[in-house]
């Protein structure tokens, strides 16, 4: 059935006990991985083993458990760094999630505004510009919006075409010599668009701006190599890539991390402290105040192992094929309109749609009665909704464990929606 898939989906599904669940008397059809992915036993087991066997705080004790925990935590950092092609593990900062990673970047600019000795790349004020896109998750919009409001800089954005793509024709116009930083979404969580990056990164270089990616929906689904991408920073989140909640990643170039003021301050991020003054540790410790998510880092490392073993190119090709099938099948549903690219090119297996005359909330409710989990609402991307003149959409999102049969179930259940609201 899954002829083109390079993944053994049946074997993969066996690693995810939750996929055996029933909702009422129906098998669970989980199509909400863009919100959060399910976790394989390998991840849960790694966290359990760490907790049962080596649990201790890191970098604080000479005892055996302390050094095992430190090793596990730093090992996870190295694993994540290798996974995204980072030149050094020291460029990987563990945070709580993507949202915190992006705030950490935005606050580097804000804190620099108060420091006369701050690196000029982070100096922002009236006349300076920050660029995002119209298809951002709120997590990559509001921190920059707030930053601009507080510093007097101007927020600008690249628009979306009717086909759901970035309006790249305007890149040179939107990104000017006044631009200091561009932060844009790699794969859009509502539209499913996979954004090409080279035109924006090239323009960023031309005008001397920093450029970063919200990679929350790309790192889990396709090969991401930060060196190849030629960006300055990326943010992503553990729970969307088979890992646990409570851990996220900021990757940034070493020289940037060295120049950035810290975000949160406190324990574990210092060199020396007196009552009057503190000097900070080098990155990444400088950005990891307090006890970090240690067991979560172990879980994330296991998730990275799991993905590595499958091969991200294979994951991508499975999802590309799945996206094609989703689009084909959904297009056959009467009254259904896809919001976002309608062809499986430059596209993820996340498909948003509206259903004529039926509110997404009602669609989601009826699908739930059939055991199908989709997300409904504005998906934390209200400006994207506004761009397409809708308040909310229904969004089905696939991952490495989803099958054609599940898409068939979705399409069939949409017929049920028609029946209730016909």
């Amino acid at each position, binding site marked *: 059935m899954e002829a083109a898939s390079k993944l053994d989906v049946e074997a993969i599904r066996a690693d995810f006990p939750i996929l055996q669940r029933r*909702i*009422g008397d129906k098998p669970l059809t989980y199509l909400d991985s863009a919100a959060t992915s399910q976790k394989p036993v390998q991840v849960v087991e790694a966290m359990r083993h760490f907790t049962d066997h080596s649990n201790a705080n890191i970098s604080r004790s000479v005892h055996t458990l302390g050094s095992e925990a430190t090793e596990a935590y730093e090992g996870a950092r190295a694993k994540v760094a290798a996974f995204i092609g980072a030149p050094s593990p020291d460029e990987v900062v563990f945070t709580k999630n993507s949202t915190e990673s992006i705030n950490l970047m935005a606050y580097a600019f804000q804190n620099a505004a108060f420091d006369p000795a701050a690196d000029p790349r982070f100096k922002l004020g009236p006349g300076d510009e920050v660029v995002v896109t119209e298809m951002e998750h709120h997590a990559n919009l509001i921190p920059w919006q707030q930053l601009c409001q507080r510093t007097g800089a101007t927020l600008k954005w690249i628009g979306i075409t009717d086909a759901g793509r970035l309006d790249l024709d305007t890149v040179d116009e939107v990104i000017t010599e006044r631009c200091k930083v561009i932060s844009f979404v790699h794969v859009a969580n509502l539209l499913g668009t996979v954004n090409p990056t080279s035109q924006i990164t090239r323009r960023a270089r031309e005008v001397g701006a920093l450029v970063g990616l919200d990679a929350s929906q790309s790192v889990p689904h396709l090969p991401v190599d930060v060196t190849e991408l030629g960006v300055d920073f990326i943010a992503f989140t553990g729970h969307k890539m088979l890992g646990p909640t409570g851990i996220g990643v900021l990757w940034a170039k070493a020289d940037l991390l060295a120049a950035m003021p810290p975000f949160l301050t406190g324990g574990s991020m210092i060199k020396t402290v007196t009552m009057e003054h503190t000097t900070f540790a080098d990155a990444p410790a400088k950005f990891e105040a307090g006890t970090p998510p240690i067991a979560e880092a172990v879980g994330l490392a296991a998730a990275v192992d799991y993905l590595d073993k499958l091969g991200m190119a294979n994951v991508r090709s499975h999802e590309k094929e799945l996206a094609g099938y989703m689009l084909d099948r959904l297009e056959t549903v009467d009254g259904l309109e896809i919001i976002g690219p309608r062809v499986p090119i430059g596209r993820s297996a996340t498909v948003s749609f509206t259903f004529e005359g*039926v*509110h*997404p*909330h*009602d669609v989601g*409710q*009826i699908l*739930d*009665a059939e055991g199908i989990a989709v997300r*409904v*609402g*504005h998906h934390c991307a*209200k400006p994207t*909704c506004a761009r397409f003149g809708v*308040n*909310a959409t229904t969004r089905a999102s696939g991952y490495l464990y989803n099958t054609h049969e599940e898409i068939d179930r979705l399409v069939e259940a949409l017929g049920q929606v028609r029946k*209730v*609201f016909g």
Partner: protein
Amino acid sequence: MNLDELYQEVILDHYKRPRGAGLREPYEGESHQVNPTCGDEITLRVHVADGKVADVSYDNVGCSISKASASVMYELINGTTVDDALAKLAEFTELMNSKGQSEGDEESLEDAVAFAGVSKYPMRVKCALLGWKAFQDALVRAEASIPGRTDA
């Protein structure tokens, strides 16, 4: 899950043919409410005259539950005394918080008892209460703007 229990005929009927919809003059109080998780919105106006709810008018977007609930509310409270309307508000809110344990008093809540099933779905209770919340807020504003009324 029993869908029929949630999507009762009465609810679907109010959803498809909302009563009293549209914004009208005159009014003393207006409220705009949103349900941030799903983007449901309502703008609702209240016209109070002689201690009565002389008109409730509204414009809304949202799911069947939130739209039907506003329509049912209109039928229940339009033309009643303010005190009666507040009593219905309290009664309906209680029904929505009953977690499926109450059937509601049809004598007093009329079509609104059809929402008893909704109280089992915590994610949808907010939808059902959105219009009522707007009414409560608009009424407070209306009473604040009416000179001589201090008991509100």
